[in-house]
């Protein structure tokens, strides 16, 4: 397992070098979106309308942070469970999305889209919301403010720690890890 330091937007070359299990420190911009925001993004694509941010090479972080206290950049900000975005992710990947950050398994359609269009799924440590918030240096809502924690935010991150779960070659860290350590 290798370690990489990458800056967004990600290119094909950035993601094709990554293998499941690699540790990546992300720098640059991440966009946050959960179920409700994904639904709206996909509706915009279907209507051929512009998105609130550029999807080319973008990385979306599945997170709904707690409200910041006065003086804080962001509240606690760990990943949410990713499967809820599975029905929306493939169309975003087809339109240029290069990375997703969440926790938990993805379905076959997402893994297939990662292979076909060269995108990766990263896992961040769930329940480490205070720790991960430290790597977020700026945050602003750029769309759907009325969704509250589910609004789309633009985050500027420094060395945001993630692990490659699904790579462009069809490998899956969760399956491989369990195969290695299961005793049944």
């Amino acid at each position, binding site marked *: 397992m290798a370690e990489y330091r990458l800056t967004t937007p990600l290119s094909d070359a950035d993601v094709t070098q990554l293998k499941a299990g690699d540790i990546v420190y992300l720098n640059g911009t991440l966009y946050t979106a959960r179920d409700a925001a994904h639904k709206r993004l996909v509706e915009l694509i279907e209507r051929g309308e512009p998105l609130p941010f550029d999807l080319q090479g973008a990385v979306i972080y599945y997170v709904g942070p707690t409200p910041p206290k006065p003086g804080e950049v962001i509240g606690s900000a760990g990943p949410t469970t990713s499967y809820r975005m599975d029905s929306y992710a493939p169309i975003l990947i087809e339109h240029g999305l290069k990375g997703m950050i969440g926790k938990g398994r993805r379905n076959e359609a997402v893994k297939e889209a990662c292979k076909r269009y060269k995108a990766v799924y990263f896992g961040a440590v*769930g329940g480490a919301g*205070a720790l991960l918030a430290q790597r977020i240096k700026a945050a602003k809502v750029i769309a759907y403010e009325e969704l509250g924690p589910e609004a789309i935010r633009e985050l500027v991150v420094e060395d945001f720690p993630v692990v490659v779960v699904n790579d462009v070659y069809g490998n899956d860290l*969760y399956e491989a890890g369990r195969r290695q350590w299961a005793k049944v």
Partner: protein
Amino acid sequence: MRTLAYRDVVDAIKNMVIYATTHLGEDMLQALKRAYEEEESPVSKAVLAQLLENAKLAATQNKPLCQDTGLAVYFVKVGEDLRIEGGGLKEAIYEGTERGYREGYLRASTCDCFTRENLKEKVGYNLPPVIYFDIVPGDRLEIEYAAKGGGSENASRARVLAPAQGIEGIKEFVKEVVSDAGPNACPPYTVGVGIGGTFDYAAVLSKHALYREVGSVNPDPELAQLEAELKEELNKLGIGAMGMGGTQSVLAVHIETFQPGRMCHIASLPVAVNIQCHSARHAHISL
């Protein structure tokens, strides 16, 4: 008849909510430290180290351990000889919850099932909570609280087994639920198992089992043995911390039965499994 001021109940709940969501309990810290020491997979060990670091940071900064500060779930025991003065008990729990979540900068996560609209305006900030009331002898008020996140609830299940399936059937069901939860619900898990009563009550028992101190021994020796066996078998699944593969998938199994008598209907064997993520935020107060 003893009286308790409404305001005191509100304040106690508010303080409990803020403290519990920012400070991981000593039992959980010990359990995570032990898992860190025993974990054989380097990847999972690194995750456990991050979780311990996160707990330290959250406590120092009074920052929520996790962004999912949950639905507020309460088990309340009200003494028959206790009266709340200046307002209703349920009202006090609502107000304490709302103030705790709002003033603690916690997330409001309640929404309409159908429109998915957040209820913070229509009902209140992270309201309503889920409350189970019980009436008991005496003049005390006992309130147990949990901030129960959505991810681990999504992986929980209830099933009514046939009596012939017995203990083996229960074990198989628990293994199935934990195996399916896999990486999704933030392992290492505490597994609450509710057995007996009715279809619905088994689920309540499985939830209440999670309020027990992690690492404590079940007072029923037969259940204590079943808990130990299940824990050992679940840890053979290889899930590991955050599902990245490892030997520490489950911190504890807690079983609770319908009392008295570990009761269920002669035709049924209801079993429910409530999954608890590693950010087990529980607290209780006695007033």
